[in-house]
């Protein structure tokens, strides 16, 4: 099946095969997780509480990654996601204090969008290097949020120079009956069944509506970018802007929209941190999640499905760090199994050398699991970064970023 004969039918087939692959991977992950849980007896690794924490940790990273997707699909690298996220935390706090949490979310989006607008002016209108502008926006965002916090929150109730606590949260919902029943089954510790029940319980009890909004935004973005004429034009600006321009696409306008939306998404991610993940605004709250979002996006190969996977990995390990150290230890076994499966798959592809290396690393993890009782907390925190580096090292050739990503584009100039 070569790409030159991609009839609509062939594309459908491939899309179906692709979604089947994702389904298979999800099932495999759940079964492996369950097996590890039963073998080690560490039920914390996917208890309702852990999964809830993981979902909350995933959302801000996912929003940042989604922001990155919008911008980079239009050919603008957005290192400034971190700064835009920080602006979002402040916006959410300010507007929630004076109005209500949903206005707060809009405020977060607005502040993030302002950061995006700044990036768009610098990179699109003035043709400044994207990384340079992004670095500057991170400095400005950090400084602005700290300055604004001191200027506006100092004398408020629950406020201080560096914080504003006691903010109202977006509505939380619990589906009565289902939530308790699922939580009950989850505590039975049955193989696979309890794991699925824990997922259901985590998603039906005290679920913030903002958490629901995040996947909605992901699906909506995917649909807009890949299923509408506007999305096609936007992506064409990231692949070959000169060709797009020659076909009548207003490249500057599309880039502007993409980067502003990108900032707004990152801003909402920041707002999520202030309103759902914690009970208020503090400076330095983002803790580099904008950068992690960027990594999750690259990890996810600039595709919506991929960025969800990447964000989940980062979010899960992030949440696990704060919980039990036993769970972290059990995770070693999971990583070992995962690597072993990957090695077998490589072997089937005939990549013997790569399979050998992966197999050896996997054996190392098994040994680590068997020979020790606990893992230092910090090592879990490191996992996602090391994993990203490894994935990039092993699969960088398979990643494909938009062809004109990060390049300067001037209308009417050839370079």
């Amino acid at each position, binding site marked *: 099946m070569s790409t030159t004969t991609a009839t609509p039918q062939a594309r459908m087939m491939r899309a179906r095969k692709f979604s089947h692959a994702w389904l298979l991977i999800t099932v495999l992950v759940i079964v492996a997780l369950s097996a590890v849980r039963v073998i080690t007896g560490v039920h914390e690794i996917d208890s309702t509480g852990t999964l809830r924490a993981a979902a909350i940790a995933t959302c801000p990273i996912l929003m940042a990654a989604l922001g990155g997707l919008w911008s980079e699909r239009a050919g603008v690298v957005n290192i400034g996601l971190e700064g835009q996220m920080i602006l979002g935390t402040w916006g959410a706090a300010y507007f929630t204090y004076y109005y209500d949490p949903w206005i707060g979310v809009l405020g977060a989006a607005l502040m993030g969008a302002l950061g995006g607008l700044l990036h768009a002016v610098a990179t699109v209108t003035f043709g400044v290097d994207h990384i*340079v502008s992004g670095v500057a926006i991170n400095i400005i965002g950090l400084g602005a949020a700290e*300055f604004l916090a001191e200027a506006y929150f100092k004398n408020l109730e629950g406020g201080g120079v560096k914080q504003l606590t006691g903010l109202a949260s977006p509505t939380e919902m619990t589906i009565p009956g289902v939530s308790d029943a699922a939580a009950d089954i989850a505590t039975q510790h049955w193989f696979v069944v309890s794991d699925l029940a824990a997922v259901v319980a985590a998603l039906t009890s005290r679920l913030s509506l903002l958490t629901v909004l995040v996947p909605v935004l992901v699906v909506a973005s995917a649909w807009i970018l890949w299923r509408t004429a506007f999305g096609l034009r936007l992506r064409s600006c990231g692949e070959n802007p000169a060709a797009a321009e020659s076909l009548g696409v207003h490249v500057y306008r599309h880039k502007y929209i993409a980067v502003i939306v990108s900032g707004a998404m990152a801003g909402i991610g920041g707002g999520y941190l202030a309103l759902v993940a914690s009970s208020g605004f503090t400076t330095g709250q983002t803790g580099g999640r904008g950068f992690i979002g960027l990594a999750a996006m690259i990890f996810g190969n600039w595709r919506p499905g991929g960025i969800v996977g990447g964000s989940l990995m980062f979010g899960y390990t992030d949440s696990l760090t704060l919980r039990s150290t036993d769970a972290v230890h059990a995770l070693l076994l999971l990583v070992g199994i995962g690597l072993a499966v990957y090695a077998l798959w490589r072997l089937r592809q005939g990549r013997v050398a790569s399979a050998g290396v992966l197999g050896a690393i996997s054996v190392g993890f098994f040994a680590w699991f068997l020979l020790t009782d606990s893992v230092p907390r910090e090592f879990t925190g490191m996992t996602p970064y090391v994993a990203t580096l490894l994935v990039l090292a092993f699969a960088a050739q398979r990643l494909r970023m938009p062809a004109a990503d990060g390049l300067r584009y001037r209308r009417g100039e050839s370079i």
Partner: protein
Amino acid sequence: MSIVRRFGMGLLAPLTAVAAAMLITSIVISLSGSSAIEFWEIIFSRPADRVFVNIVNQTSLIYLAGLAAAIGFRMNLFNIGVEGQYTLASYAAASLAGAALFPGLLNVFMSLLLAVAVGAAWAGIAGVLKVTRGVSEVISTIMLNAIAITLVGYLLNRYGVKVGNGVRTEVIPDGSRVDGWFPFAEPDGPVWALGLLAVLGGIGFWVLLNKTRFGFDLRATGASQSAAVASGVNVNKMVVYSMLMSGGIAGLIWMPSLFGAAYSYGTTFQAFLGFTGIAVALLGRNQPVGILVGAVLFAFLNEQSNRLTLETDISANVVQITQGVIVLAVVVAYEVVRRYRTKLEQRSVTETLEADKTAKGKAVSA
């Protein structure tokens, strides 16, 4: 274009940028209900002796950070990882110096060597990943930053000495401390002796780039990779070498402070210098003198702003906005000036052609 005019054009961009940053800062302060005039009065007041010493010391740290970032930038390598490189290197050097395996100044020398080696090695990972596996250095250095900072946190908790609420490495013995000179009274503090590393670094950077073959290759690769390849430059080798050098210098960033004031790695460690260095390198257009101007400016703003907290209701963080805006405004201004210059050149070329044509026309009709 005359030299005076060209020089004027070169200054135009940074001056416009500083003016824009001042304007925006003033607006932000005014909007928040404070007095912008009060702010500038404090910033532009004569620094106290103690503050003056601090500015000099901070300049040396920021300048080293700027140089570290600039080496990569000159080759279009975005070493965002200066932060992680100097964090890890500082911890390693502080541990070695604290262990006092060597006597006196030899201890200092070996620690500096270790700092350079660790910084270079950490940056080298990104370089090797780039040339062998095609991993973008931007993303790998971001990952390596996070890993380095977590790793140091772990090592410090595991092997550090607990003091009160904090943890630190062993204190450097008296014989291996390098304080410096006291330009004012003793309580105003010393100008750190190892700040000389920044001077040496600056001179070395200039010589390396402008007087060596390596520097020529580096600049050539930065200007046009394909042209460099065509003239026989091994780009892969250049990428790894310049990452190693960038990381090596990054390893030195905190050394003046370690041996001059902190004496151990702990709560006294000054984080975020790596990112400041990136901003300063961009501000100074990756030129040794430009970076120096940027470093002085940033150190000056940082130190002068400390007075704001005590004397006004303006947050000292506002200078971060000023700094960020300067960086952004400078690059925008350079771009605008560049476009204006191109337009001027085009116009002068057209004028010359027109003049030629009319002259020829006259000659023919005559």
